[in-house]
């Protein structure tokens, strides 16, 4: 008899649990956090005083020594000084305490470590179209530190795992004592704990977005640029997925970050909220492009070699919305050439031909333009392109081969 009622309650439990999970799933689109509510929780020169936070900082000492000495870092003083300036402008009360490193990794990412040092990937510099966008990402990362997210989420995890461990043990011992099997409850509780951890993480990201919007607007950057970043990222991921005949991944229960779409929508609302009527906001595109100019060929080169033509093409076209130039046209050609589908050789040839018209065309554009012309049987024109290549790059490693091609 009792077995029967237990059976019933177990079923009702699972049904109830299912509804609960579904409710949580719809709850992924949580209420927007208002920038006005985002006050920094720490002041300048913050040092941890609690034991757990001191422990976390201690671990970070060695991590920072390792990262600061990594050979993946780009040490160009102009670029690192530029990043340092930006974090010094949008870093709020901790502006002077932050350290920022630039890592040569072709991915869209930046991160803040618990003790106040940030790492920016070069892939981010490729994607940002102006200084306001870069400042937005850096301000978001500063927001994590200013709102003490690392230690807060660590404590949240510790608290939830403690409660779960005690609950599971109690259920086991208590259930065994009473002769009832409570394993289903324990499993459900485990799922609940896990989901609430991810939920908490998404909430922190939403906080950092709101804090970031506030910080860049205070510094005079156009706050709407933060929302534009997500629009671009969604476009890039869709293009990348479309090429591979897949669908772009949407937000789910196990995401640590809110979905890009919801971030974009919230950031647009944030931007409207933090904008002061009558105040001038800048995107600072010129200064951004001048500063990253020296490494832009490298950034594009890294990207086209990722074998992700959908994303690369989208990125180049997005950057070209601010105007085509020789560099972008050359790398457009490289995307086609490396993709190498039917007809791509012609597309690549057109891009190279377009590239060499611009005054900033790189030497390699002339090399590939020459090879394309050669294939079309236009020898004399090819020869001229090769000659130009050799003048621009006299000690090219393939100079001998190019001379031989010139006949």
């Amino acid at each position, binding site marked *: 008899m009792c077995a029967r009622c237990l059976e019933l309650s177990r079923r009702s439990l699972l049904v109830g649990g299912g509804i609960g999970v579904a409710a949580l799933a719809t709850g992924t689109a949580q209420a927007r956090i208002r920038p006005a509510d985002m006050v920094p929780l720490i002041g300048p020169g913050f040092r941890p005083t609690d*034991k*757990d936070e*001191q*422990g*976390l*900082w*201690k*671990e970070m000492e*060695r991590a920072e*020594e390792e990262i600061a*000495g990594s*050979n993946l870092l780009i040490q160009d003083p102009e670029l690192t000084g530029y990043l340092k300036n930006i974090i010094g402008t949008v870093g709020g009360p901790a502006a002077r305490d932050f350290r920022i490193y630039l890592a040569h990794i072709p991915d869209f990412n930046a991160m803040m470590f618990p003790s106040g040092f940030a790492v920016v990937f070069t892939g981010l510099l490729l994607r940002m179209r102006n200084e306001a966008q870069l400042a937005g990402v850096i301000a978001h990362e500063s927001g994590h530190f200013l709102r003490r997210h690392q230690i807060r989420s660590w404590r949240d*995890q*510790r608290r*939830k*795992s*403690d*409660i*779960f*461990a*005690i609950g599971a*043990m*109690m259920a*086991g*011992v208590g*259930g*065994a*004592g009473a002769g009832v099997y409570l394993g289903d409850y324990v499993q459900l509780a485990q799922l609940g704990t896990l989901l609430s951890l991810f939920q908490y993480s998404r909430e922190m990201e939403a906080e950092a977005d709101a804090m970031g919007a506030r910080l860049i607007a205070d510094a005079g950057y156009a706050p709407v640029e933060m929302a534009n970043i997500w629009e671009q990222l969604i476009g890039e991921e869709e293009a990348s997925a479309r090429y591979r005949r897949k669908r772009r991944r949407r937000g789910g229960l196990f995401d640590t970050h809110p979905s890009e779409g919801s971030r974009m929508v919230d950031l647009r609302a944030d931007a409207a909220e933090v904008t002061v009527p009558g105040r001038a906001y800048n995107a600072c595109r010129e200064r951004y492009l001048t500063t990253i100019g020296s490494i832009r060929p490298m950034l594009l080169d890294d990207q086209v070699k990722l074998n992700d033509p959908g994303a690369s093409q989208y990125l180049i076209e997005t950057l070209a919305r601010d105007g085509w130039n020789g560099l972008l046209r050359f790398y457009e050609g490289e995307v086609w050439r490396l993709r190498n589908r039917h007809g791509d050789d012609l597309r690549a040839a057109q891009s190279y031909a377009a590239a060499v018209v611009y005054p900033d065309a790189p030497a390699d554009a002339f090399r590939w333009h020459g090879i394309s012309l050669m294939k079309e049987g236009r020898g004399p024109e090819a020869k001229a392109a090769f000659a130009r290549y050799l003048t621009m790059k006299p000690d090219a490693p393939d100079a001998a081969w190019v001379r031989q091609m010139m006949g």
Partner: protein
Amino acid sequence: MRKVRLALALTLGAALSGCVETRQYADVQFTPPQGDYKLLVLRPDVTVGSITTGGMVEPRADWTDQARAGIVAALRAQQAERGGHVQIIEHRNELAGVTPDELADVERLNAAVDESIVIHKYLGDYLPTKRGRGLDWTVGDGAIQLGRKTGYDYALFLHAEDQVASTGRVVLGVLGAAGCIVGFCAPNIGGATQLDYASLVDLKTGEVVWFNVVRAGSQVPGIKFGDLRTPQGAAQMVERLLGRMKPGLAIRRAQAAH
């Protein structure tokens, strides 16, 4: 009554399943350094944390500092007894004549080599090409250059991590053990664990000449196998890890033949 006896047996069994385990490997030609040798200890990597009730490891800065000081003191005492001159550096810029970058290169390469030793000597992925050849790994030219520039004979890399069960974790373990009486037995939820390893590199040849791993742990929270936070515990760890360096196979055979 029978239930209680069973519970006791299980608890005891679980307690005994925790243990101290060490396994060392040496180059076939290795003779433990003795007499007038110069040893460089590169940034001993020590962390001590607390296991929370839920099983997470919370790093503790104060305990880590205590443990590091204890280990450094014990290491100095031990090496002085053997006649060695030892320098222990904490940061990469502390070594005269070598840039932090050069030192970082040697350290990183050594870390990769150590990882490979652990995979192929300890984790069961044995290499037939290295069978019967003792410890056959080298850190190469970088290590030789380091020796030439600094005048040291050996470099020692040391890693020690200790996790101490918090009161909450011990209580949870006691609860799990108590549950054995009613038939839900979970005393072995995992307690204090210590993992230490060290590698010795001959700076004249660049070869890793000796490697040792010590694992100490208990499945039952509340039972300790040496606590790095105390000077005694740190000295015990240094002794377990570096105390009994065995000579290489060829040397031992030669000694046995005499």
